[in-house]
């Protein structure tokens, strides 16, 4: 039993998109713009010349926030979306009826339709590909050349993520919605 989360040292991101590729490769995600579990957002330079804010320009990797109070889970009419023992929000494709209510409810646009199973899919921290084989890293984390991602057990005080969250400031996305996300953006 664990409570998995991920910290993102996003200012180290160089937008190489290796994480996107690794995720597609590891989890067998189909090609196409709509089929993505994770992405790298690009914030441009803000302001009007000559008052340009160079500091505002950054790359911001993101994905499913693995909310503790996931709106996608509570709206699922057949409980196809569920929390596994490690607190990861997952989808059982056998139960998904493709009503896409979860896609409406997710405030993070983290869900997409898998055209092979014709069900809604999402990031599950590589639970069914890597974690099940005893790996301790996700594909996106393992491949990241600048070590942006720190994945681990939030309940284990000795885990790297717990230490980082103790030492560094961070923010979470759309926290005001009460979703209790488990992705932490280190500042």
């Amino acid at each position, binding site marked *: 039993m664990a409570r998995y989360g991920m910290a993102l040292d996003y200012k180290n991101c160089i937008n190489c998109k290796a994480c996107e590729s690794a995720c597609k490769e590891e989890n067998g995600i189909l090609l196409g713009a709509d089929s993505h579990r994770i992405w790298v957002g*690009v914030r441009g330079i803000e302001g009007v010349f000559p008052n340009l804010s160079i500091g505002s320009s950054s790359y911001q990797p993101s994905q499913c926030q693995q909310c503790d109070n996931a709106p996608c889970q509570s*709206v699922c*009419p*057949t409980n196809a979306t569920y929390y596994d023992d490690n607190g990861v929000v997952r989808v059982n494709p056998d139960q*998904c*009826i493709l*009503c896409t209510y979860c896609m409406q*409810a997710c405030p993070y*646009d983290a*869900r997409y339709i898998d055209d092979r199973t014709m069900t809604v899919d999402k990031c599950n921290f590589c639970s069914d590909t890597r974690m099940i084989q005893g790996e301790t890293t996700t594909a996106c984390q393992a491949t990241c050349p600048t070590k942006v991602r720190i994945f681990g057990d939030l309940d284990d005080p000795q885990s790297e993520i717990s230490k980082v969250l103790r030492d560094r400031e961070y923010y979470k996305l759309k926290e005001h919605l009460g979703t209790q996300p488990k992705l932490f953006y280190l500042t």
Partner: protein
Amino acid sequence: MNLNKILPYNKHTLKSFFSFEFTALNIFMFLLTIGLVTAMFYGIGVYLVHGHHAYGVTRQHAWGLLIAMYVFFVVSSTGLCIMSSLGHVFNIKAFKIIGKRAIIGAIIAILTGFAVIAFEIGHPVRMVIYNVLTPGLTSAIWWMGTLYGLYLFFIILEFFFLNNSSHKYSRIFGLAGLVVGLAAHSNLGAVFGFLVSRPIANGPFFPLYFILSAMVTGSYLLFLIYGWRYKMKFPPEVEKFMITLAQVLGLLLAILIFFEIWRMLTAVYGQMPERADIAIHIITSKHFLIGELLLGMLIPFVIIIFSKGRAIKTLVYASITGMVGIFWMRYDLVHDTQLAPMMPLKIHEYTSAPGFVEYIPSAVEWMISIGAIGLAFMMYYAADKFFNLDHTKEDSH
């Protein structure tokens, strides 16, 4: 066992079933129905081959025209049920004559709604199975679907007892159908109202508005149904009913306009992102101004006000614009809810400017959803042939 004793129905040969008076209007409706149903089946055929790729829906706009038309049909059903209950359950005398016709309309509308949603839900059979095996009790869709199933069961029983004049039982099931229908329908509003991620939809407005707009829809449909039934030559008791209906509709429209004004004012006030900007987009769009406001509310409202509800023939025609307006209300409800892109930190990806999510229904979506109106016409024609839907002397007393 003689079925006719349990549920009285008219016997027909194939020839008598398909025979109708050859008036211009009848022939037009016949051709329209055939055209619409053909379009629907063609659309279904394309959908069965290509799945959701035949639709214009995307990751960011996952609900499209079919959801809007599903809402359109189930709102119509609940509306007819509520309006018929005014006479049947609440004993308002003028409304007592509409029981059978309104309830068969409600049954037909909800069946058509189910037919449309069956081609939007990716796995309708799986839905029936896991709705029972692993119910998601925190899901408004689960409650809405389950309660609508129960509602259909009750109103079928209500129709059954209305038809063999068992007034005691028809009243019991009428009340049950009304209560469950209200619960189901407000849950449909809650499907949108519960979306914390969508500030424009989130809140108590939609569950309340759905019931109110259902009553408006039910009134428009009753005008159309009775206008068609009597071809504008109304017997006195029907005329009395329609004048009362017009006055009730006037009140309902006034409340609806009042609701909309305050919805938009509260949405715009304070400039809250994803709420004020969308509200401004709505109230400046042609869908809203011409579709919802002018056709759906103002034209019938002005006619009622200036004629004091007596221009019932004009109101039959105004109900056509009213129903077009109701369609746009449903379409906008679904579309506007999804306007704001849910793209945290993705807003500048690929340097595209952040804007509203766009959606254009595909031809297949139009065929299935608008074609379904033909399916409803066909079912109504059959019901009108098989059952005696007119009121009896007993009903009006």
